C-alpha cells in the first residue's frame, strides 16, 4: 500500500522557520513506522534526521510525536495508522536540534537530580540482601521505564513551561523511594515534596496514556504523594 508522510523539518543553523515535508512510501501493513522512516531516509532523502537504535521498544531512542501523540516509531505499525496521512514531529517541549532530533540533556539532568541509584545502608552482607517478593513487586511497573521521554514531553504542566520536574524523573524517584533496600526513604521523599516535584503533577494522565511501556505513571506519582502525606506530615 501507499502511505503518505508529513514530516517536520528544521535545522536551526540553516532555517529561520520549521517546515513540513511530504513523502510517499510503499508499505506493508505489518511494518513499523520506523521501517518507513528508514526507507524515506535511505532511498529518498538522506538529509532527514531522527534517532533510532534497538527497533523494538527497549532503548527509547525513536520517541517522537506520531499523529499528535508521543510514541516510539518502532512500536507503531503501518496498519495502526493506515487510514490517514502520518504526521511525524519531534517531542514537544524539547529544543529541536534538527528535524526529529531534540536536545535530551535537560531531560537526563532532571532524572539525575533524583539520584537514580540505590543508597543502601553501608553494611553489605557477603551475599545478596534479602527482599521479599512482595517488596520487589512494588517496583515491577517502574523498572519498565526506558527513559524515552514520551511522558515528560506529553505532560501539559511541562508544556506550560513550568519548572515541574516531570513524570519520568518522578518514576525514577519512585524506583528508589519504594525499594525496600534503600536507606534514604525520608530524604528522597523530602526531595520530591516540593511544588515542582511530586506536587507539580495535576493528574492530567497524559503521561500514562502515552507511555510505550504501559507504566501507570500518574498513579505512581499519586502513590508518592500519599507516602509524603503519611511519612512527612
Amino acid at each position: 500500500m501507499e502511505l503518505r508522510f508529513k514530516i517536520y523539518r528544521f535545522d536551526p543553523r540553516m532555517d529561520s522557520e520549521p517546515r513540513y515535508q511530504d513523502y510517499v512510501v510503499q508499505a506493508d501493513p505489518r511494518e513499523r513506522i520506523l521501517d518507513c522512516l528508514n526507507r524515506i531516509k535511505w532511498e529518498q532523502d538522506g538529509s532527514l534526521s531522527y534517532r533510532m537504535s534497538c527497533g523494538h521498544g527497549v532503548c527509547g531512542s525513536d520517541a517522537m510525536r506520531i499523529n499528535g501523540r508521543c510514541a516510539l516509531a518502532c512500536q507503531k505499525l503501518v496498519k495502526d495508522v493506515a487510514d490517514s496521512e502520518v504526521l511525524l514531529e519531534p517531542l514537544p517541549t524539547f529544543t529541536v536540534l534538527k528535524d526529529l532530533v531534540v536536545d535530551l540533556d535537560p531531560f537526563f539532568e532532571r532524572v539525575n537530580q533524583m539520584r537514580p541509584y540505590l543508597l543502601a545502608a553501608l553494611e553489605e552482607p557477603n551475599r545478596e540482601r534479602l527482599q521479599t517478593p512482595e517488596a520487589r513487586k512494588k517496583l515491577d511497573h517502574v523498572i519498565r521505564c526506558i527513559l524515552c521521554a514520551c511522558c515528560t514531553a506529553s505532560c501539559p504542566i511541562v508544556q506550560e513551561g513550568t519548572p515541574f520536574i516531570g513524570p519520568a524523573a518522578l518514576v525514577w524517584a519512585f524506583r528508589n523511594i519504594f525499594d525496600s533496600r534503600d536507606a534514604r526513604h525520608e530524604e528522597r521523599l523530602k526531595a520530591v515534596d516540593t511544588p515542582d516535584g511530586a506536587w507539580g503533577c495535576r493528574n492530567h494522565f497524559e503521561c500514562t496514556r502515552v507511555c510505550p511501556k504501559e507504566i501507570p505513571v500518574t498513579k505512581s506519582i499519586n502513590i508518592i504523594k500519599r507516602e509524603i502525606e503519611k511519612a512527612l506530615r
Partner: protein
Amino acid sequence: MPVHKHDVVIVGSGLAGLRTAVEAVGSADVALISKVFPTRSHSGAAQGGIAAAIGNEEPDSWEWHMFDTVKGGDYLTDQDAAEVLARDGPRAVYELEHMGVPFNRTPEGRIAQRAFGGHTRDYGKAAVKRACYAADRTGRVILDTLYGQAVRKGIRVYAELSIVDLIFRDGRAAGLVAYDLATGELHLFHCRLLLLATGGFGKVYKTTSNCFANTGDGVYLAYRAGLPLEDMEFVQFHPTGIHGLGVLISEAARGEGGILRNRDGERFMERYAPTIKDLAARDVVSRAIMQEIQEGRGIDGQDIVHLDLTHLGKDRLAERLSDISSFVRIYLGIDPASEPIPVHPTCHYMMGGIPTDVDGRVLGKDLQPVTGLFAAGECACVSVHGANRLGCNSLLDLVVFGRRAGKKMLAQLPNVPWPQLPRDAGDAVRERIERLKGRSSGERVHGLRRELQQVMMERCAVFRREADLRQALEDIRALQARCRDGLYLNYRGERFNTDLLEALELESLLGLAETIVLSALKRTESRGAHWREDFPDRDDQRWLKHTLVALEDGEPAIFYRPVTVTRFEPKPRVY
C-alpha cells in the same frame, strides 16, 4: 579540532564499558564515549538473565558452570578464562544486587533463578536453574543500575560521538578520533589507557536481534590498525527470533517451560537433544530448527517453527515474560497465552573479536599485550565463549571482565606516561570524509549494506559450504570496491548527518564480514556455531585451536593459536 585529555578513555557505554568505568574512576580521570546515550546501549536489550552458580533454587557449583561453559563452547573455550568467569559469577551477581539491581526473588527473599540453555548440574546430567533474572528485562535493569553508578560517580560522558580512528604511537595506544554527530566536528581524545567496549556487529546479517548501532566500529578499527581478530567464524544464531523481524524471544521462554514444535505439533527437540531437549545449547537448537524446515516440517510450508508458551498460563507470562509477550502482541498481533509464536533463528552474538587476556589487555600479532590498549565485552574475545556462547553468560562476561579490565588499568596507570600524539592524528579521517562528501554521484549506503546482509545470510549463516563461502568472499570484495570507489552521500550537511555515519559504518561491516567468511572458509570442520555441511565432524586433531586473522600488506592473513585446556579434556558434545 578540539582535543580532550583523560587518563582513561572508554569507548562504549553498555555493561562492559560502564562496569569498567565505575571500577576505574576516582583515582583515574575517566571519560566514556558513546555512539548513543548510555541508557540506549544494546546491553539493555538483554532479556533472560545473568548466569551465576549461587544455588538459590537448586544445588549448583562453579565447577559445573565452568564445565557447561567449556562444553557449550564446544571445547574451543579457553578454560582458564571459563574458570575466572564461573568462579567470579556469584560475587559479580551479589555486587550487582548491592548496587541496586531489582532481581526477582524467591519466597525466602533470595535472588530468583531459572533454567537456561546448556546450564546443567552434575556435568550435564539435567538442567539446573542458574540464571538470575529480573522478569525478561535483566539487561535493561542492570544497564540502568550501572548508569546510576556512573551518575553517582560523576563519570564524564561524551554521548553521540562515534569513533572513526584509533591513534597509535610507537606501538602503543595514544587516543582516538571521534565524530560528533550533533555538529559534524571531529574530536581528538588523548589518553594514557584506552578501552574498547563497542559491542557486537550483528548488523553484518540481514536478520538479527542486534540494534542499528551494532556495526563493530571498535573491532574493525583495531583490525585496520593491524591488530588481529580471533575466532571470527563463530557467529551465534539465536533459535527464537520473531519471524522476519529478528526481534528476540528470550531463551527464558524455554527456561520457563516453552516448547518448540514443528508443523505436526511434534516436540522435535526430543530427537536432537534427548536429555535436556528444548534447553540444549543455542547452536544445537538453531540447527535443529533449520533441519526441520529443510525437511519440510516448517509451519504451513514456511521457514518457521512454533514456540509454544500456551501451557504456561497468563500469570506466569505476565510475571516473568511480560516484555516478550508485549513484543509478540505488538508485532504479530498474537496473545502468547493462547497462540504459539512463529520463530526462526536470528543472528544474535559474536563469539569472536579482539583477542584479550583475562585482564582485558589486548593481544597483538605476537600474542603479547599491546601497551595502553584494553577491550571488554562482546567486542573482545577472551575467549570464554569458545565456539558457542551459553545464554546468560554474556551479561556475566561483561561485568566480570569489565571489572577486571578496570582493576588492571588502575594498577598500570601510575607507571604509564602520557604518550605523544602524532602530528597528523585525524588527517586520514578528515580526508576520508572530504572524499565522501566530494562525490556528487554514485551508490548510496543502503543498497550496498542490503546486498552485504543478504550475502551473509544466504552463504555464511547457520549452515556453511565451501562453494558458498568462496562466493561470499568474492561478493564482499566486490562490495568493498564499490564502497571505496563509488559511495555517495545524499546529504552533505554538518548536523546529525547519519548518512555520513552509516557510510563509515558500512566500511566496518564490510571489513568484518570479510574476516568472518575467510575464517569460516579455512576452518574445515564443524564446531559449535560454525557448521560446515561439507565437514560435518568436529576435528580436535587438527582444529582444537583459535583462528586469528590480521592484515598483512593490506590483505587478511590467517594464523592460529592453541586452546588453553586445564580441567576438561574434549569429549563428544551431546545434550
